[in-house]
């Protein structure tokens, strides 16, 4: 993890235990940034869970990278994987509400998908931080 208190940068294996590792790290930053800890924690948990469950199918291997930074009046969180992209998953064990929750919890969320993976970028309100 980046030593700077206003940033988080994690490379995690696509395993269930990575969900909490990411959530706790970004939640700590959200607290310091004055963002809603509950909203940030839930959104990060959903985004990383989606990556762990869906991204590495068909034998594909890789990592989940979680970055968060406090800039201006925003906390910007990116969850990126180098998996298969956002393609239908008929064996989906989830409720199918993850992306909806992410969109509602954040001020703005973007989902970029390709055959090189998925990038979810979430922006949350924060106190004035580093420019």
């Amino acid at each position, binding site marked *: 993890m980046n030593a700077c208190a206003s940033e988080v940068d994690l490379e995690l294996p696509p*395993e*269930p*235990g*990575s*969900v*909490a*590792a990411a*959530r706790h790290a970004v939640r700590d930053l959200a607290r310091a940034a004055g963002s809603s800890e*509950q909203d940030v*924690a*839930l959104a990060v*948990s*959903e985004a990383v*869970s989606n990556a*762990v*469950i869906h991204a590495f199918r068909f034998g594909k291997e890789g990592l989940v990278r979680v970055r968060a930074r406090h800039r201006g009046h925003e906390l910007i969180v990116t969850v990126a994987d180098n998996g298969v992209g956002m393609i239908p998953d008929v064996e989906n*064990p*989830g*409720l199918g*509400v*993850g992306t909806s*929750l992410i969109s*509602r*919890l954040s001020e703005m969320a973007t989902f970029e998908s390709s055959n090189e993976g998925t990038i979810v970028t979430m922006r949350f309100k924060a106190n004035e931080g580093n420019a």
Partner: protein
Amino acid sequence: MTAPGQMDLAVTMTAVGDGEIAVVKAEGEIDLSNHEELGTALTSPPCSDSAGILLDLTAVEFVDSSGLRVMLTSAQAFGDRFATILTEGSAVDTLFEMVDVRERLHVSASEEEALKRIRAGADGAG
């Protein structure tokens, strides 16, 4: 035992009213790493042998949609004989509101109200 990276979750089960109702109390955080632990508790004795389940979430600090899915599965199986209690304003409450599942999970204001509701459901089913 908690596996590496798995969140701490304690689930205790108590049978009340001559064993007719199983009270399941979860403590900690529920996510992808441990939601099956709650699911196992809700589908094993005494829950599987009971007339109803009261799921106590007042000590749960965090839950995401993986945990919610487990709860909805149990609520669907038990119908009116399933109820939950939680702490108002908690992370659990926030998620339930956002996904609009308070009614489906029969959120009750107190343990007493929840037990009354479950007993009424059991009477109706019986």
